[in-house]
């Protein structure tokens, strides 16, 4: 793995080297992919949108790395500037941009069921629980119950589905919709990183 070769290099150097060395971009990605996913998922509360935003941000970074100029600021700032730009577009338009991915020929990949739970674990709902209790009251009954079981009681989707007498996919959809409404009501998308 070429990542070790780049382990000690700062982000700015990785971005500059990635113009001629694809492995340098891989190192940058490995360093920032999961933190960035956390960044997005905490602001959207939507696992699907969050992974798409990560994919589009890195695709945009890959496509525009040739225009990057090292002006002394950390390379991560450049990367997160792209991320915030993508997030703002998502909040404004309700859909994740896909221009960079299409330009690079990156295929659309669905989110595996296991990934949902792992990504939701990144949300760290603890600070939101108070706000959640109030916001939950405004949700439709079925979403509220799904959210209560999944978010407040921390049950897995299999158990949530069993208690609600529905499939796991339905349970996930109810939680996902509830989180999206919650995010909108809490205006998480407009917060700074």
């Amino acid at each position, binding site marked *: 793995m070429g990542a070790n070769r780049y382990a000690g290099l700062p982000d700015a150097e990785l971005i500059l080297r990635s113009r*001629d060395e694809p492995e340098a*971009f891989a190192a940058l990605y490995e360093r920032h*992919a999961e933190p960035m*996913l956390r960044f997005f998922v905490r602001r959207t509360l939507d696992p699907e949108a969050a*992974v798409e935003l990560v994919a589009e941000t890195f*695709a945009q970074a890959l496509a525009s790395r040739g225009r990057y100029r090292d002006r002394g600021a950390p390379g991560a700032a450049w990367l997160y500037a792209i991320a915030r730009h993508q997030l703002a577009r998502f909040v404004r338009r309700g859909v994740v941009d896909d221009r960079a991915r299409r330009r*690079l020929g990156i295929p659309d*990949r669905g989110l595996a069921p296991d990934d949902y739970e792992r990504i939701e674990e990144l949300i760290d709902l603890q600070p939101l629980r108070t706000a959640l209790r109030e916001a939950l009251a405004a949700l439709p009954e079925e979403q509220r119950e799904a959210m209560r079981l999944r978010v407040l009681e921390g049950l897995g989707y299999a158990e949530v589905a069993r208690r609600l007498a529905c499939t796991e996919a339905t349970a996930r959809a109810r939680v996902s919709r509830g989180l999206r409404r919650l995010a909108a009501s809490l205006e998480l998308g407009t917060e700074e990183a």
Partner: protein
Amino acid sequence: VDTEIRFLRELREDLMEAAWREELGRAAGGLRRRPPRAAGRRGLVLGAVALATLLAASAAVGSLVGLRPTGRAPSMRVRSLVVRNGVEAATIPAAAPTPATADLAGGEAAPADAGGSLEKVVRTAALAVVVPRGSFRERFAEAADVAERFGGFVESSETQGGRAGRLVLRVQAARFREAMDALRSLGRVERQSLRGRVVTGEYVDLRARLRIALERRRILRELQAKAGTVGEVLRVQRALDQTQLEIEQVLSRLRTLDRLTEMATITIALREEGAEVSFTEPVARAPSLGAAFRHAVAGFFRVVFAVIVGLGYVLPVAVAVAVVAALGWLVLRRVRAPG
């Protein structure tokens, strides 16, 4: 990627593949291979719209600047000129002598050679003349006399309210210019147009067809004399009939061309000073599909002409605007781009 999230692992592979593809593309030919994308299609549509706008603007400008073509396709070999306010811009050569087709009417004589310098031109002219008050009747009669003076006749005439009228005159083509001078001298020339339609090519073709048809008829007559059976006689007779019909059609057209080229047509509209009558109407003609087609072709060439002229005006401005817009876009992109 050190993560349990499968999506992130797969995304890493996708990004690496894209990066390597780009790298290999650069190494292969310095060209970046880009997969099809919506932005490309959008660019194509925008480009088409821009091109269409440019052409439309060019056509509009071209027609506005007043550089209008003659209105006919160049290949139609039509000489035309319009003279306004009595100032003649060009002249048409005097009528060429017209060999009569009488030698062909009998059908046996070989036609005369119509090539070389012989030119067959159908001449038409229209002019509008304003005469002093109270002189309309006298001048109208003088105009009618012109036809007879120059070996022709009055084809039609009409008057309107005793102060205006129009005559269609036929005069000998050889004396066309003298007749026009005489008509111009009747008053102040308000509008004048001359047209010469060259029909030499058609004339030569017709004579060639006639020569071939006559030869065929001669051979068929010989065959008819030698025919041994009723069936042979009938077959030869049928071929003879067809050939005879063709000979008559060609002769008829040749005579028409002779008549048209021997006699020029002049339409003159006269009106007294102050009389509210329009002289601009052309001689009435029956509408025909051929005329419609000719108009369509002429219109097409007019539009092409206008677009070419307009492009000359619009293109430098369009290029300047495009350069400024491209620079603005680049600056904007740089300002907006993170980092």
